[in-house]
């Protein structure tokens, strides 16, 4: 029932908004990879123990997503269907290696903090998912916009988690102390369980907001039908 209505809802949006803008915004809000599609949970839970890590991870993923989407869209008529997954993985792995080198060149501390999760971007479902579901079927411009939207949506989601976890777990934001010496840090928040707690809390909030919006958007007679059901 709800899926039907939301699909109808998005169709209305598609008509009323310019196409490219919708492609871009979709990844940030409506199809947010973390809060709506629940993709890429591994880095979301693992590297969001501080804002800097979350931001670095988000930007790294954004870069890889953007480059791979662009290249996949450019080569979409050149890659035969039978070898497409292998081709996408090679493309993605290339850009992950690039990011890996660049982060090492920028800061070794950051590189050590992110650990194996930089290399693991290669298996992040968002990136392969966008290559397969969007870039391989659309023009380069659209693929770029899609990558930007999804990447920014992913980064924002990581920041949402990283912010809460760093503030509660360490009393700091971006390393700047917020509450002074006397703040009792909730160390569980920067430990792995904290990632699950905070993600759960955000999902709760998002679903609650979405449900409320859907209820409001429903016309009275639809609402009536739903209550009857």
């Amino acid at each position, binding site marked *: 029932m709800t899926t039907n209505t939301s699909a109808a809802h998005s169709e209305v949006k598609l008509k009323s908004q310019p196409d490219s803008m919708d492609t871009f915004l979709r990844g940030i809000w409506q199809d947010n990879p973390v809060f709506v599609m629940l993709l890429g949970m591994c880095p979301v839970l693992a590297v969001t123990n501080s804002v800097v890590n979350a931001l670095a991870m988000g930007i790294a993923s954004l870069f890889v997503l953007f480059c791979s989407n662009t290249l996949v869209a450019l080569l979409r008529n050149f890659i035969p269907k039978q070898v497409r997954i292998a081709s996408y993985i090679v493309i993605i792995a290339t850009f992950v290696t690039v990011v890996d080198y660049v982060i090492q060149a920028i800061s070794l501390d950051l590189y050590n903090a992110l650990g194996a999760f930089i290399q693991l971007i290669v298996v992040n479902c968002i990136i392969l998912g966008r290559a397969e579901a969007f870039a391989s079927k659309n023009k380069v411009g659209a693929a770029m916009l899609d990558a930007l939207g999804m990447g920014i949506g992913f980064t924002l989601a990581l920041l949402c988690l990283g912010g809460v976890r760093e503030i509660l777990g360490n009393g700091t934001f971006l390393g700047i102390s917020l509450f002074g010496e006397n*703040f*009792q840090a909730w*160390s*569980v928040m920067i*430990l792995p369980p904290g990632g699950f707690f905070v993600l759960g809390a955000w999902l709760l909030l998002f679903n609650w907001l979405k449900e409320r919006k859907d209820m409001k958007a429903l016309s009275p007679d639809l609402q009536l039908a739903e209550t009857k059901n």
Partner: protein
Amino acid sequence: METVEVRTSPHVHGAPSVATIMRNVVYALLPICIFATYQFGLSAVALIIVTTLACIFTESFFNRISGTSDSLGDFSAVITGVLLALTLPPGFPLWMAAVAGFIAIALGKKLFGGLGFNVFNPALVGRAFVQAAFPVAITTWTPSLTAARFTEFIPSTLTFPFAVPAAVDQWNAQVAVDAFSGATPLALSKFENIPTDTFLLLFGTTAGSAGETSALLILLCGLYLIFRNMLDWRIPAAVLLGAFLTEEAFHLFDSARFPDPWFMLFSGGLMLGAMFMASDMVGSPVTPVGVWIFGLLIGFLTIIIRLFGGLNEGIMYAILLGNAASPLIDAATQPRVYGVTEAKIFGKKVD
């Protein structure tokens, strides 16, 4: 005018309602609370009140936003609050205790759908959260039976919300009658190989969580519930047996390294956990065989964590793991339906 209905037999007696049972559990916990108060004074009272209020407020808050009927009347939130307080160190900062109470009801119970649907014991969920969040505060122990316990709080109790609790080392040194090392009997045994007299453990004049110190009193309170038929005696019996047998095996193997099984039985939170938390009706299996397996598993895990884990107390995680395993235990120990052959339940129909 009252109408009197006359009916023929059989006359069905109502089983005690949830509220009746829960109320009796509260009665059974009262002596333990009183003893905690006698031992640790004002701080223990404040701790019990704060966790209980936190649990009650959380419960009613969730009732209101989810629009479900009032579930405060069944006393389960009160029990969660009191049990939670009894498992915390007496000098635990009150604001952290309130956090624990909130998490216990919100995360441990209400998100699963309220009483009867929670997988884990709510009080232990709350405690496990603060154990992970505030590892220092929850392992800071203060001596019992200090002279001024009825007139002043333990300094860490009245910590300002979200602030670091005051250090109690100096206070401990001032108020302690004997030299107090800031460790529980279990920690002493594990890290320094210092045994504690079983007699002291029974009567509970040692350091420890607010309500876990007197094994004898907990045993008596549990027996009250067992005789009122409001507690499945098999669960505490199985937990204690499991712990005893496991420890006995290790003790026989190397008596210098592993302490006496009686010490393990009466120290730490094992008795409280076995009597009041493992036996929680919601999180334990229903089949008679399953109950024994569940209890033995908890006892076994407790000892394994105590002896080989990084912490010196394991009953909390053991019960939570037991709770997690209990649906599986239930499924594996379903009795065969009478008159139905096994082949027809599990096997395929053969034409």
